[in-house]
Structure formats: C-alpha cells, structure tokens
C-alpha cells in the first residue's frame, strides 16, 4: 500500500460519509456543508488520478460559487425542523425510486467499464491544454451551445428578479458627476440683518 492508496481510501471514505451526511442531517445548513465536504473529497480523488484541472474547477465552481449560493438561501429560510422531518417522510417513496434508478444506472456503467485498460497518458499530458483543445476543436459546437444556454439562463434570471421600485433612492453616479458648481451652489449677497 502506497501513500497514494492511503490518501485514496481517506478521500473515498470521507466522500461516502459526507454524502450520507447530506441525506441524513436534520439541519439543512449541515446538509449543505456536508455537500461541500463531498465536493472537496471528490476533488481530492480527481487530483489522485492526475486530473488536477477538473479538481480545481470543481472546487472553484461548485464549492466557491454554487454551494455558497445554496448556503445563502438555506440560511435565510426560517425552517421548522419538526415539520421538515414529517414532510420528508411523504417524499420518501419518490426519493427511493430516484435513488434506485440512479443506482441501477451506476451498475450498468460499472458493468461496461474496461477495468483492465488504464486511462492512457494522464500523467504525461498537460490536461488543462488537453481539455482546452478538445473543447475548442472537436466539441466546439456543443460547447458554444452550452454557453449560449447559460447566457440565456443568466439574462433570464436578471430579467425575472429585476424590478424598478419607486421610492427607493438610488445613487446615480453619472448624474452626480455631471453636477457642476454653477447648478448646485447659489451664492447670494444678503445684507446684514435682512436675511431670514
């Protein structure tokens, strides 16, 4: 057993335990934090197989952005834990069905995987370069379409949440900068004793 093996088992165990924590936690905030731990362990596994670019992107996108936003939303919720647990029993059959389907799919994947063939060239190729080349040559159209869909979602989210509110004072920097001494200050000579 090498050091890499020990680290693999460490991350793998951590990932599975954290995933159980996501499902099993009573408090939704703890669930999200366990999810973050799952992401982190998975990133560790990516590093071990030499896919450091994927690991960095996983950490940056999922831990640095997506999970933070989850956490923002979940923390803001006023959750009644007892009710949440009652409700969760109602959705148990659905959850179990989805879980079962995914488990079967995973089984098929494992069945078709060629275990004897190691992934070739992972340790020699600069995999950032390799991913970039694959994305911008062979998969250029799917990649561009995906980015377009994301752009639409982005604009959609802004359009849905943006509303002009009356009676809210907003700072208009351009208007502030356009003000000059002439239209902002008026100097008047007031005779002594006559100003009111």
């Amino acid at each position: 057993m090498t050091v890499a093996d020990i680290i693999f088992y460490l991350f793998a165990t951590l990932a599975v335990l954290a995933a159980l924590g996501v499902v099993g936690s009573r408090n939704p905030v703890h669930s999200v934090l366990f999810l973050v731990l799952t992401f982190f362990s998975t990133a560790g596994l990516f590093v071990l197989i030499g896919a450091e670019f994927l690991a960095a992107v996983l950490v940056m996108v999922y831990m640095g952005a997506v999970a933070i936003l989850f956490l923002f939303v979940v923390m803001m919720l006023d959750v009644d834990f007892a009710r949440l647990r009652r409700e969760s029993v109602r959705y148990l059959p659905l959850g179990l069905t989805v879980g079962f389907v995914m488990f079967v799919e995973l089984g098929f994947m494992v069945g078709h995987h060629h275990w004897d063939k190691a992934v070739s060239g992972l340790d020699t190729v600069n995999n950032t370069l390799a991913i970039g080349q694959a994305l911008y040559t062979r998969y250029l159209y799917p990649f561009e379409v995906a980015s377009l869909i994301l752009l639409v979602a982005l604009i959609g989210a802004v359009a849905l949440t943006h509303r002009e509110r009356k009676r809210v004072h907003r700072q208009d920097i351009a208007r502030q900068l356009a003000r000059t001494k002439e239209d902002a200050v008026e100097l008047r000579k007031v005779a002594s004793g006559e100003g009111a």
Partner: protein
Amino acid sequence: MADFLKMVHEMGVGFFGPLLWSLVWVVIKVVLLLAPVLFIVTYITLAERKVIGAMQVRPGPNRVGFFGVLQPLADAVKLIFKETILPIKADKGLFILAPLLTLVPALLSWAVVPFSPELVLANINIGVLYLLAISSLGAYGIIMAGWSSNSRYAFLGAMRSVAQMVSYEVSMGFTLIPVILITGSLNLVDVVEHQKTWWNVIPLAPMFFIYFISVVAETNRTPFDLPEAEPELVAGFFTEYSAMSAGLFLMGEYANIVLVSFLGALVFLGGWLPPVSILGFIPGLVWLGLKAGFLMFVFLWIRATFPRYRYDQLMRLGWKVFLPLSLFWIFLTGLVLQLTQGVRGG
C-alpha cells in the same frame, strides 16, 4: 546543498523506514514553509500599528521589548490565556470549526507559491487555478461563523462579507486571465520566468490596479471593511468570538494579506527578477521580499488614508466597473496576442 539533502534522506529512511519517512519529509517541508509565513503574519500586525502610528504622528506600541518588537507575542499570550466563550445558542461544532476554516485555506495556498525557480513546495501546472480555487474556500469559515453564532449582527456581517468576497473574487480571477494568456501557462514559475523582458505590470497596468483593489476588498480590509463596520454591526461575523478563536480570524485575515501581496508581486511585478539586470547580484528572494513588502505596506497605507465605502458603492464598483473592465482587457489581450503572434499552443 544536494549532498546535504541526500544525507538527510538517507538518515530519514534509516530511522523511519521508506513509507513513514515520505510522510515525515512532507511534514518537515510544510513546517519549513509555514514557519516564515507565520512569522511574517505575526509581525505584519506590529508593522500595521507602527505604520499607522507614524502616519498619525504617534509612536505606536513601544512598551513591550525594544521598539515594541515583542508586542505581537504579548498579544498572542493574552489571546491564548483569555477565556473562550461559547454562546449557549450557538451551533457548537460549526462555531469552533469556523475560525480554523478561515485560517487553513490561507495557509494551504502557500503550497504553490514559488520563492525562486527551485524553491517551491509543489510546482504544479495549475498553480494560478489552485490559488483561485483555494481562496474561494475562505468564504466558508466566515459564513459558518456568522450562522453558527446565532446572532443578528454576526449573521448580517457574514452575509455582507461573503457577498463581497464572492463578488471580488470574480474580478480578481479575471485580472489574472490576461496574465495566463500572455504566459501561456498556469504554472507560477513559468509566469514569473516569462516576465524576463518586461514585467506584466507594464502591458497590464490597469489589471494590476484592479487586482490590487479587488484583493483589498477580498481580504475585507479598509476601505472595504464593511463586514466589520463597527458602528452598524459591532464586529461583523466574529462578534461572538473571543480569545484565540477571534485571534484565528485575525491571523487568517493577515495571512491572506501576505498571500495576495506575494501573489501580486509574482504575477505582476516580476517575482524574484531584478528590475534591471545589473542588479542581478542581489538574490531573488530579496527582490521578491521587497516587492511583496511594498504591496503589504500599501495595504496599511490605504487603511490609514481612506474612509469606508458604503455597501451599495462597493457592489457597484465590483460588478459595474471592475467586471466589465477586466472582461474587456481579456478580449483586448487575446486580440493583441492573436495579431502579434498568431494562434498559440498548437
């Protein structure tokens, strides 16, 4: 040096056995890296008080030790021996974990920071990406602290702080992309070595300014220290923390300042390269130290000079000014590279 290393290796293998020795060797390397880092972190607190003192025409701390040099130690002893208070309604586990989670990412990042072409703990190909990824984890410590404290001030402080960090991380990341485009590599050693002809700050001066302002915001420093805006929020996300657990947050903040200063020096100011080649006889480590030290000084200088921003102004600056500007520079850099050098990579 190589002989000495070989001797140490042989002795270690003989003493611990090959497997255990490889672990022990890693620990030794990490300690050798982090000890100076923690030393700088300790003394930047003193430097801050001295510099701000000088700018406000007062002596600063000068009672503990000659010229106040033992002041950070006295502070540390005080923080360690104070009572750590756990609020009754706090989520205990997360409350204790949170300060550690702010300090640890700040220290983890040092693994890829090169001090010279050879002197780097992990010379990995995605150095810049690793730094960005790890720095995005710092927000967790803060948001956990705010939430687990079960206090309104702490929670509001954490919300502000995390929103601010996430926003400015974006522009910080985008300012590094032109550098990566110019270098054609994510490896920090390559990034520095590529600056032999001229430092990146010359073609990318606006990016350097955006980078610096973004990291000031990212480390929650004045004039962007809204998370700790004391008139509104007491002490922000660490209102409920006391003794060393509050001290850990401060250490994390300073460790981040030191880190981003070094990163700025490496990425934009030529790292260990001397400004003119005649000065090459001075060791690279000194140059790197001087450049990073200058950036740290600017951090303190800004703190003594500028009033605090308002929160909406801060968000406006991040999203409406820095983001479009840095995106524009990415396109501009790509265009210039395409026109002058043709398609790269191949």
